């Protein structure tokens, strides 16, 4: 498809901004003015609409396709939550208003949402306080680790390392590193959970804490989680819970109850705010009493008279981690979702997520190698080793699924499993849909036996075939204009 710049025709316009209705004689001095012209394309609104509408149709999405992308929780995003986010009273509220004198009066509704969410999240996770500010999961991790660091600084601890399992998501070690820690990786044992012996050997006074998802990225809930927490606490380490997999245990277990000190929630996973093709999300962070003093400012507080206000008066706070109060429009969606589902509905989330994942696991293990053959939680990890022996790799199977109109599962993550295929069917998919997926996976396996060549130039039904990624990284072209130059 042509680029917007290739569709541009001089003199055309789409949106016409208001003209000035005032007369002024002053002008911007020449020295401050741009000399080069900005090359925004010139298109009519029709051409703009057609361009983006056609582009949209080139995407797979939850609204159009089964999307069992492991670790990503691609479940249904209710249209109601989208509608809620459009409410003008929220959508057009300026974030600086409550920072004016008496300005909190102008945003009582919004502050109430933040306040209530904190309470709801605390109850769901067993944490004692939450900040709504982090703007995504990884941002929550960084916030959490900075609090961890503040804790250790306050106690005069000399800490240098953070422990992460080898099955961890890349954001965990990356976060540790950019927060100034060295990350120490612990291998998984044959059951797919952290090797406690190795852990023991790595624990020492320099350990600032541990970052863990639970269930982990193998989809396995570690029954020894309390032991691990105790081991880490014994060296005054902080237990960080990566909330990406919280949807597996809603109503079944609370991180705060099993030894975690700090955690984030990906609202775009468990609380189904849409992923947007890669964000925006939100990553509220919860802490137990140990870390409360270090929470970022501002915090939303309730006065005796029932009004809410922003409290900046926390001397030990790590400070500002975002410009305002979080990705409010996403938080609002999550809030609406929680109110819709309620207690029982939230429990059903984990029930169905886990049921569906186990169903996939049990059925597919007839054809695919299952590295950890045990109950799983909300997702299951296979290996395409059997198929790879026949020359058909996880990526080939992924492309095969695209031709079936299904988004592939996560492939090649977690790194702990060779040729990994990580499947998260989510709780909102119908059995019929999941069965179609299973059939497609079986068909891929059969084909890998009968005709491995078949996979070579899949997908065939999409507008493009497999891209040359090496060329992309070598002949870097990331800007239409510098390419033209």
């Amino acid at each position, binding site marked *: 498809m042509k680029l917007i710049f290739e569709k541009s025709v001089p003199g055309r*316009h789409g*949106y016409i901004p208001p003209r000035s209705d005032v007369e*002024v004689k002053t002008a911007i001095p020449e020295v401050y003015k*741009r000399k*080069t012209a900005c090359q925004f394309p010139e298109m009519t609104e029709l051409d*703009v609409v057609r361009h983006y*509408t056609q582009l*949209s*149709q080139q995407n*797979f*999405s939850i609204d159009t*396709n089964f*999307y069992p992308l492991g670790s990503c929780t691609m479940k249904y995003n209710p249209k109601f939550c989208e509608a*809620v986010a459009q*409410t003008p009273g929220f*959508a*057009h*509220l*300026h*974030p*600086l*208003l409550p920072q*004016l004198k008496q*300005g909190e009066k102008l945003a009582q509704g919004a502050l109430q*949402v933040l306040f209530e969410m904190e309470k709801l999240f605390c*109850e769901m996770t*067993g944490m004692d306080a939450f900040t709504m500010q982090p*703007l995504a*999961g*990884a*941002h929550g991790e960084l916030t959490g680790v900075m609090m961890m660091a503040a804790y250790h600084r306050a106690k005069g601890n000399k800490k240098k390392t953070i422990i992460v399992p080898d099955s961890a998501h*890349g*954001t965990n*070690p*990356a*976060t540790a*590193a950019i927060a100034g820690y060295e990350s120490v990786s612990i291998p998984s044992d044959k059951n797919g959970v952290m090797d406690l012996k190795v852990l023991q050997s790595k624990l020492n006074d320099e350990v600032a804490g541990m970052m863990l998802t639970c269930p982990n990225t193998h989809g396995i809930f570690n029954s020894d989680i309390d032991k691990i927490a105790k081991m880490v606490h014994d060296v005054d380490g902080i237990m960080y819970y990566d909330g990406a997999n919280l949807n597996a245990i809603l*109503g*079944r*277990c609370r991180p705060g*109850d099993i030894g975690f000190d700090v955690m984030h929630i990906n609202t775009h996973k468990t609380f189904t705010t849409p*992923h*947007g*093709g890669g*964000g925006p999300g939100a990553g509220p962070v919860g802490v137990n009493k140990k870390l409360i003093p270090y929470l970022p400012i501002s915090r939303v507080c309730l006065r005796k008279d029932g009004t809410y206000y922003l409290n900046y008066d926390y001397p030990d706070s790590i*400070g500002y981690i*975002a*410009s305002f109060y979080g990705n409010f429009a996403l938080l609002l969606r999550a809030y609406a979702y929680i109110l*819709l589902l309620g207690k*029982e509905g939230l429990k059903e989330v984990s029930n169905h997520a886990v*049921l569906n994942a186990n*169903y996939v696991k*049990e059925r597919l293990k007839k054809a695919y190698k299952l590295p950890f053959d045990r*109950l799983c*939680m909300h997702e299951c990890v296979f290996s395409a080793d059997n198929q790879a022996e026949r020359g058909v790799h996880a990526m080939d199977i992924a492309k095969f699924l695209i031709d079936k109109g299904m988004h592939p599962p996560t492939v090649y993550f977690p790194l702990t499993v060779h040729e990994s295929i990580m499947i998260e069917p989510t709780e909102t998919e119908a059995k019929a849909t999941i069965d179609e997926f299973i059939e497609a996976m079986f068909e891929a396996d059969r084909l890998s036996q009968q005709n491995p060549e078949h996979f070579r130039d899949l997908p065939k039904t999409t*507008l493009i*075939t497999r891209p040359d990624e090496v060329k992309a990284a070598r002949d*870097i072209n990331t*800007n239409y*204009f510098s390419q033209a130059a």
Partner: protein
Amino acid sequence: MLKAIGVPSVDDLFVDIKPQHAPHSFNLPEGRCEFEVFEHIKKLAAKNTFDLVQFIGGGYYDHYVPAVVGALISRGEFYTAYTPYQPECSQGTLQALYEFQSLICTLTDMEVANASLYDGGTALYEAAMMSFRLTGRHKIIIDGGVSPIYRKILRTYTSNLHYEFQETPLVHGQADRKQILKLLDDKTSAVILQNPNFFGVIDDHTDIVNKAHEKGALVIESVYPISLGLLKTPGEMGVDIVTGEGQSLGLPLNFGGPYLGFMATRKKFIRKMPGRIVGQTLDMHGKRCFVNTLQAREQHIRREKAMSNICTNVSLCALQAAIFMTALGKEGLRQLAQTNFEKAEFARQQIEKIKDVQLKRSSPTFNEFTVCLPVDASIVVEKMIHKGFAAGFPLGRYYPGMENYMVVAVTEKRTKDEILRYVKCLEQALQECRVEVRT
């Protein structure tokens, strides 16, 4: 399904969670139907005063968002997709992001841009980190005209790291060349500037850039995209890393988010840039297509050696801005900037006429300017709320000693009539203050 799994009940799927690990409490409200929740949300929304006539900016502006933006951004195929890991079935998002990057490049006059960062504040932090990686140095000089919010964020993120920040004050509302040159040394990783700055003042930083480069330091500049319809670009000034808040490009205010951080830089720095980057390539049949590229910079490949820990960014906001910029077009951008400038100039000239109000205006401004009142600005702003105006942002909160100052923003949405009413009400408010002081 239970039969296929071979367990008698759903509870049996959760046996790995030991009984003692069950929730100590799970006291949540009962579920409600859509209608009831909607009524509840509407009640909460009614507790927000979102319809004041808006003269507050501070980096977040009340611009008009044309309907075409909302109509396209609400397409499920866009917003219910994940990060485009499978390019064949994600060309919609990928091409749009490539176009977004190109739009940011032509807007800022830079060579490469990424596909978004969380927001303007964290983008500036990422730029600082990038400068450390590029220069191996540890010191940053930061101009006092940079958003105080951003400066606070920078301090938070580096508090566990070993970097030094030196802040310089403003002169006549612009960056203090003398101070900056004095601090510039061969330990300096970067100078951070903002244009227009928090006071609305515009500047040409070319001289600072040249001096910084002489010392082997980089220059990072945070920009307000709409202003670039008229203002000298970071590219023209020779800036090395540009960041900015993209809220003004078609995003509603949303009480603080989601917003849009963007970053652009020189091509030679691209491998040190954080965040996702979409690149053009060819498919097996030689057809043009788009992929996430240079992923070796990112956490999912490089883990602890990644340029940043960012994963989920704000793709949909980038798309939203791309739609806005596309609809706006070249001439629309220029006109939008011009209208903003003229309306603000008009407001400034009217306000100037009010007794006791001063506009220390040694330097030109774009669509926001600083007003010095005879009394505490926060009190005046509070009075103005009751008259239906968000009159400006008092500076005392972030600039101790400047309690009598406020920054006033005027966008294309403010009509002449609103501006004139504003001026009248401001006069009244000041009069009320005088009376209160006397009594």
